[in-house]
């Protein structure tokens, strides 16, 4: 049993490493396909770089070496944890990233939690209410899930920062500054989750055990809270890959709209200025996060969902 589990875990981890290697390679290839000269990118959009300065840059960064050598060197550095030096900002990438990871994680985690909370509340409240309420909620969820997060962000910003200055318009400092960016990400997320959860809830509601609970005279709300909700929340776990992906993509946009510091803002700037070490690191970081969370969730599936456990046992 443990051996089988270990083998399963090992296989999952090996697959993860393979994917990461592929991601690293793909990023390297991609950025070398970018038109424009790397030396120019390092020098930045200044017209006044002398040929000597260029030569110095090419020598320092080893840009005159064959691409294969640069690739191997790149992989080697990654393995030793050396992420390289930012071309644009004249400092090690890890120093640059160190300060940006936290704000992005704060935003992503708070948005995930808020999204889940919104979904659960919406489902519970509407489950207890009648048919009209449920339809209204369904329509509302559909609309909110269709609203692009960047537009929602702009509207929230206009209303609650510029028109009625309740929330600060800038910065990551303090919980108050986190409210609008979190809502921007959490509302569409919550609406989508609520749709899926409601389906699960309705399915659980028709299940035999719900009937027996009702027969025991339990109220609707009690039925939901104590019994069926557990089933409804499981999609949040099975959808974790989608949630993580949409949050990573979403933070890129939201950070740019709310002028929040973070990985996403760093990435867009780096893509524009062809700052290869920064771009590769950020992309890899997101891939690592993605793979890690998926692997963990995958391994935890049977623990969380008894049905899956049963299936696997079969």
């Amino acid at each position: 049993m443990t051996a089988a589990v270990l083998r399963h875990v090992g296989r999952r981890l090996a697959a993860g490493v393979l994917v990461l290697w592929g991601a690293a390679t793909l990023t390297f290839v991609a950025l070398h396909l970018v038109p424009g000269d790397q030396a120019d990118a390092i020098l930045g959009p200044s017209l006044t770089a002398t040929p000597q300065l260029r030569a110095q840059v090419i020598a320092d960064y080893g840009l005159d070496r064959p691409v294969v050598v640069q690739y191997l060197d790149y992989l080697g550095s990654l393995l030793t944890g050396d992420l390289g030096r930012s071309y644009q900002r004249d400092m090690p990438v890890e120093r640059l990233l160190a300060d940006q990871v936290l704000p992005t994680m704060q935003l992503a985690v708070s948005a995930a939690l808020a999204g889940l909370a919104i979904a659960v509340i919406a489902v519970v409240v509407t489950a207890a209410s009648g048919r009209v309420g449920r339809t209204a909620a369904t329509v509302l969820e559909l609309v909110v899930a269709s609203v692009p997060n960047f537009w929602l962000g702009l509207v929230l910003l206009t209303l609650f920062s510029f028109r009625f200055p309740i929330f600060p318009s800038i910065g990551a400092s303090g919980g108050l500054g986190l409210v609008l960016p979190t809502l921007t990400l959490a509302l569409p997320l919550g609406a989508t989750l609520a749709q899926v959860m409601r389906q699960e809830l309705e399915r659980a509601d028709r299940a035999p055990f719900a009937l027996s609970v009702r027969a025991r005279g339990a109220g609707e709300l009690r039925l939901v809270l104590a019994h069926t909700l557990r089933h409804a929340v499981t999609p949040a776990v099975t959808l974790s890959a989608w949630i993580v992906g949409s949050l990573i993509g979403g933070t890129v946009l939201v950070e740019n709209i709310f002028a929040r510091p973070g990985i996403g803002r760093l990435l867009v700037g780096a893509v524009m200025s062809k700052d290869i070490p920064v771009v590769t690191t950020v992309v890899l970081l997101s891939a690592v996060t993605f793979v890690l969370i998926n692997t963990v969730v995958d391994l935890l599936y049977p623990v969380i969902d008894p049905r899956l456990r049963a299936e696997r046992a079969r």
Partner: protein
Amino acid sequence: MDTRRRFLSLSAGSFVALFAGSAVSACGTGEDQAGNDGTPRPGGRLVFAEPTSPIGWDPQVGTEDVLGLILRPVFDSLVSETPDGRYLPWLATSWTVSDDGLTYTFVLREDVTFSDGTPFDANAVKVNFDRVVAPETKSRYAKSLLGPYKASTVLDSHRVEVTLSRPYSQFLHAVSRPYLGFHSPRALAEHPDSLGSGGQFTVSTGPYVFTSVVQGQQAVFTRREGYNWGPGTARHTGRPYLDGYTVQFVIDDQSRVAAATSGQIGIADQVPAAQLAGLRRQTSVTLISRDVPGSPYTYYLNTRRPLFRNADARRVILYGVDVASITGGLFQGQYQRAGSILSPSTRSYDDRLASSWGYDRARAERLLDSLGYTGRDGDGYRTKDGARFSLQFPFATANTTSERRNYDTAFQAELKKIGVEVVLTELDAPTYIKRTLAGDYDVSGLAWGGSDPSILGNLFSARSLVTQGGGNKAWVDDPELEALLDEASRTIDLNKQNDLYRRVQARVIDQAYGLPTYVAKRSLAVRPTVHGLEFDSAGWPFLYDVWASGA
């Protein structure tokens, strides 16, 4: 996304910031921003917001205006410059210049220390200047400031002699800039690769110490205990008033200004034109608008292109675009139309030139007729032998503000009305640089800061082509203009010099080498709690004298 990266030769060419300080005009409710509002008191912190952050934190390497602005209170200079172009002591108590102008001898203060305790002495000056010019430093601006620097010699512990290879009248101006401030020799020895990282890695002599930085978010500075060597230009001596200051980087204009009006921060820099009118009505902030000296945003017409070899083809652009009405509509009356290739706050500005030219659609269309562009194609563009009057206008995302991008779009739409096609192409920085160096464009937009009219040499001399690191984007090679520029650079008499530069401006307009557009203002939104705010010769807030009232 304006990085406001300055071009190297720009400030090396500017010599005395004559009008930078005097051009301050306070608007709005709090007219009195000169520091007469009560007795300065110590304590408090100032937070101010800038749209962009420097890409690195080593002033001896970087080029940005904002880098100098933020680090000015961290890096002292040998001398201080008054807004009217005189030099007062700072880290140097006195200095002498040899008769041939090749040797500068500085006598240094003896009580100055770096924040790591290292004494500031003649050797510190020498190792810093030597580092600036060393190729490994990859200095992009400070090195050009030092100009014909040859060597530094330590005469004794507090006397240093700098020798130049040719006379260089801007040398004192150069050493008054923060870009030639001093790193602690110990920092230079111990972590030479980390000086660009900022924060604790930055060790200098200034009234504030660089505490920490979060890239792209904020930089934090704290008062230096025991600081007692402020510049001669300051209004007080001893400790700086504030306990510290924080710079936040907020690229979004709306958010930056809203942060000031709601009291989140003390000063918002670079208020966009669109918000000026609204802010004037507000009592929560005072608006300080300052003219930006230098050359306004101008569309340079590439004279090397077959089409623009003909001055009449260039005049089509000069007369075919209604810059006054674009400026009025886009900036809602906040900015004025530019009348010359220099802005009004620049010395030698020719105020009579503006009336000599202007929008004249009929004239532009007559010129097009006479050039043979009499046909019209399906899209309404003028043609000659089937070929459109079409202009390539590439620009880089990284150094184009949205104000300018809007202006470019209006320029394009305006010319379409007379049948001239403008092809706007947005490029990434490397591609843009490549195209610019190859001269592969018809139109190129550029503004050039600097308070001295000698910037005209950088913009129009055949020796300052973009390939040589200059700003001659129109690729002008005009003997008459060259002679005027040459004579002006040799002339010491200011009146004569002004006259020559006025003739340069007239020649540029007459030959239509470029179309000057609008005179921008640099506006700051300042909270009433910020007192004593004045501007140094570079036009930057002078934080040493600033104090905060409670609230």
